[in-house]
């Protein structure tokens, strides 16, 4: 058992006294008669008043009290009286008097001179002489009277105030009566439920202190996921719901062959310039390419075939062997389609991927040298542009973009090619949200896919829709080492595809 606290004691005494006597006329005398400080009693009174258990009336009194300086004068006399008393009949040097009187010397000299109590020997300003036998120390008397609580004239008060010898002090104490909620023993209010309450059973009598609902809860230590990864997950769900299988995209290093040539992208295409693509010093070139397929790719570039007239240029193997960091995940789609073409009989597929791609571009508010590409493709006999539009509407409406329109575009490996625009209600305009198309026969037929098999595909970046979604206008605030931890901590749940 904890010792009973003195405050609880005071409270019990006070309530018992009020119960029997009906009132406390002066809290100061109650405090001194019960041996507690008035400060302690005051806190008990305030608490009980708040619960309306006691009814307190303030008693306020203002009194003049002596400053520390004045207290000294009341005890030892005013500085001028002290000075006069200190001067022997033959007089004394200023130095000797200063040593004797200390701080009181300067003030004493001035006042004593004014009262003509002291004088100086002719020709020797240093020797102070006493000019009166005895003095009447009025200041000391006035201070003593004030100290004893006796009345002094207002004129004296003003004078003392000016000399900074007195200050006004406010004292508060209380008279007490029983309040409307008076009880002899107050119930303690609980702030929390403890296992002790449950064990002892005193929860039955428990009354709760009012809770401050304006205050916030305690900050908690928890883990967080990166906002871009949250959006990636939401889009992944959409693909899986639509029956798409993920492609293995964990191969950042790719050969030009799979990244460009196999996609019927000519070797002089601007995208293959070093200012768009990261080429590699190590490993500089790929070691192995599927020779049969390579021959067909070479032929379709140089002279066509499969119904095409080709580009009509000398295709160079060296160029195809150059390694690079893949510029698009379509390099992976191409490998997957080639693999699919080798499997007989042909089976239709829906593939997707979301992974990193690399562009040797200048970095700015909307461009990074690496970003995430979202890609989806469907491969089957007889697919149409209408199918592509239908699938795109399905996909983008789940991303919250239900108003789409399509613009003719150019892409070396798709024909027809369509840029996808979505109407943005906030920006009040059509925004380009992705690219799409049907893979060219010059890309699909050399792989060995059967005639009549079409591939419809689309791609977009993960960062752009995420920036639009969260209203972020600098890509580096979303992705990379400069992202603010507070953004990660405060980002709302991603509701795409709910």
């Amino acid at each position: 058992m904890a010792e009973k606290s003195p405050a609880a004691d005071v409270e019990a005494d006070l309530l018992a006294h009020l119960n029997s006597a009906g009132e406390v006329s002066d809290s100061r005398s109650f405090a001194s008669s019960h041996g507690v400080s008035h400060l302690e009693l005051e806190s008990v009174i305030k608490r009980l008043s708040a619960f309306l258990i006691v009814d307190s009336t303030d008693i306020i009194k203002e009194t003049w009290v002596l400053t520390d300086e004045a207290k000294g004068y009341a005890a030892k006399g005013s500085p001028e009286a002290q000075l006069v008393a200190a001067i022997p009949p033959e007089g004394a040097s200023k130095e000797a008097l200063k040593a004797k009187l200390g701080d009181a010397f300067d003030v004493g000299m001035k006042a004593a001179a004014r009262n003509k109590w002291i004088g100086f020997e002719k020709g020797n300003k240093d020797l102070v002489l006493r000019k009166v036998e005895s003095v009447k120390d009025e200041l000391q008397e006035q201070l003593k009277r004030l100290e004893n609580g006796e009345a002094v004239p207002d004129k004296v008060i003003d004078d003392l105030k000016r000399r900074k010898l007195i200050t006004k002090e406010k004292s508060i104490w209380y008279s007490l009566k029983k309040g409307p909620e008076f009880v002899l023993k107050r119930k303690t209010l609980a702030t929390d439920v403890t296992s002790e309450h449950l064990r002892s059973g005193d929860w039955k009598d428990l009354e709760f202190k009012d809770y401050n609902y304006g205050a916030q809860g305690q900050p908690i230590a928890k883990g967080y996921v990166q906002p871009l990864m949250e959006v990636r997950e939401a889009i992944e769900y959409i693909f899986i719901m639509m029956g798409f299988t993920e492609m293995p995209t964990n191969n950042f290093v790719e050969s030009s062959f799979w990244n460009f040539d196999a996609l019927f992208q000519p070797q002089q295409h601007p995208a293959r310039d070093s200012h768009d693509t990261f080429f590699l010093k190590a490993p500089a070139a790929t070691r192995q390419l599927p020779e049969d397929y390579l021959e067909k790719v070479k032929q379709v570039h140089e002279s066509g075939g499969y119904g095409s007239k080709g580009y009509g240029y000398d295709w160079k193997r060296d160029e195809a062997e150059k390694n690079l960091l893949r510029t698009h995940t379509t390099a992976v789609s191409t490998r997957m389609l080639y693999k699919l073409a080798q499997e007989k009989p042909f089976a239709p597929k829906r593939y997707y991927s979301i992974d990193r791609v690399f562009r040797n571009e200048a970095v700015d508010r909307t461009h990074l040298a690496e970003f995430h590409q979202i890609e989806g493709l469907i491969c089957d006999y007889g697919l149409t542009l209408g199918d592509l539009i239908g699938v795109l509407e399905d996909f983008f409406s789940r991303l919250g973009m239900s108003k789409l329109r399509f613009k003719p575009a150019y892409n070396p490996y798709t024909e027809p090619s369509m840029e996808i625009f979505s109407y943005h209600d906030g920006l009040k305009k059509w925004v380009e949200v992705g690219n799409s198309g049907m893979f060219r026969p010059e890309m699909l037929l050399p792989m060995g896919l059967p005639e009549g098999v079409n591939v419809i595909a689309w791609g977009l970046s993960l960062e752009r829709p995420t920036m639009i979604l969260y209203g972020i206008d600098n890509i580096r605030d979303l992705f990379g080492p400069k992202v603010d931890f507070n953004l990660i901590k405060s980002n709302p749940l991603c509701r795409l595809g709910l």
Partner: protein
Amino acid sequence: MPTVSVGRDRLFAALGRTYTQEEFDALCFEFGIELDDVTTEKAIVRKEKHIEDDGEVESDDEVIYKIEVAANRYDLLCLEGLARALRVFTGTEASPVFQVSSVPRGSILQMNVKPQTSQIRPYVVCAVLRGVTFDEARYNSFIDLQDKLHQNICRKRTLVAIGTHDLDTLRAPFSYEALPPHEINFVPLKQEKSFRADKLMEFYKSDMKLKKFLHIIENSPVYPVIYDSNRTVLSLPPIINGAHSAITLATRNIFIECTATDLTKANIVLNTMVTMFSEYCENKFEVEPVEVVYHDGNKTVYPDLSCYKMEVSLSDILGPIGISLNEEQVVCLLNKMQLQAEHHSFNGEPRISVSIPPTRSDILHARDLVEDVAIAYGYNNVPKSKPKFMTIGGRQPLNRFSDKIRAEVARAGYMEVLTFILSSHEENFDMLNRTDDKSKAVIIANPRTAEFEVVRTSLMSCLLKTLKHNIDHPRPIKIFEVGDVVTLDSSRDVGASNNRRLAALYCNKVSGFEEIMGLVDSIVKVVRAPHVNFGEKYYVPTAEPEFFPKRQCKIVTSDAKQVGYLGIVHAEVLRKFGIPDPCTFVEMDIEALL
């Protein structure tokens, strides 16, 4: 995508009507070009000279439309072609028919090709435009188109270079030669005095526009050069033309030569020049041929303006779009795209013969006709449908597993970050007290800046960098990332492979070594046997330079295979990254835990 600047008022005059900007935007969208910017000549000059926009708009300042066109449509790179395509598309005009004029035998102009040219720039193709009427706008357009072609299909003049000359200042036959530089002397365009070719190359090293082309021939023992029969230099391709034959507003007869390393593209470029500007010839759309005579006696007449024929069935065209139309309708749509077509029937099947004019070099396959029909029909009019078959969705096991590990680490109170795969060499090695023994890292050949020199071989520098950028964040800081590193790998076709990693970093006033061990313990617990076997003791002390000695170890499976490592980050490493507080770092191979 190339952008073409055209005066709005001239464009509308050529289109025979005016449009509001909204209407023009809509037309562009439908046709597949884009009104990229609306500006004025003065604004362009201000921008080039970096002068502040003073906000003054003068009413007589010509409005310029900057229009983005497809990269394979060279016929849209000038106002003439753009306006023509839109007129045909909107049905106000039929496609032009281009003709090579018939020249009496013996009077055809000749270009003789010398054998030495094969060492440096083997091909030349030529044509003549007769009776041209230029005004300032037409003249500027003629020059601009050459610039645009040089930038795009000519790949900055490496593949093809165009020279245009006032034919009346020259005397045929011409000869295309390749000579040692000191044997070539002429007054180049915009200069007064004669230069020897090697001196001229020296002279142009300080020319902002021309210096970027010098590399094409600079190191060759012979330079390509074209002379007329008076030994007047027409041009020193691909650098500069001679001043003698310069085109002016008064020029009436134009000789065009294209020298090249790629004959297909040389023909496309020549055909683009003549099909665009024969519009201003006395006999509209008629071009005079030139005979190119090779040293072995072979002769070819250019330009070849014949149409390329394609024969397709109706279903070949409509099948991939998913619409049904009859033959007449398809022929109409093809006509809107400047493609001449006729329909007939073969064995009862409707078929279409298409003639592809020399302006449409982008058409390679019947699939290109499909796109043109779809554009003419309107992409946004195509009825939407659904692919018929269903498939089962699924994920890559490694990616699904990685997500489970991510969730596990986030549940342990760590914050996920996402960093870059590319890094500077210094961050990946020196700043981690590591040295590059050249056996591990993929190195970029052409980094734009030091940030992109290597592909990361661990996530350590990435997390330290991220921590540095958030150094004022309250402690403890607990971050993690799941991502790929790449290392050289001779077992792969490309010579490198990815490896999926988990990395976590703890930073506080004390190192948090036990905290990170606790995280590893919890991961070991969730991937344990029968999937991955760990013995009683899976921490084995190490002595790596990036960590403090005696406060680092590797994580091993029961068959002693290393699956990760951890340690208190070395004070030197922390100093290099600018981190004042102790950190513990762990990295694990997720693929080894799968």
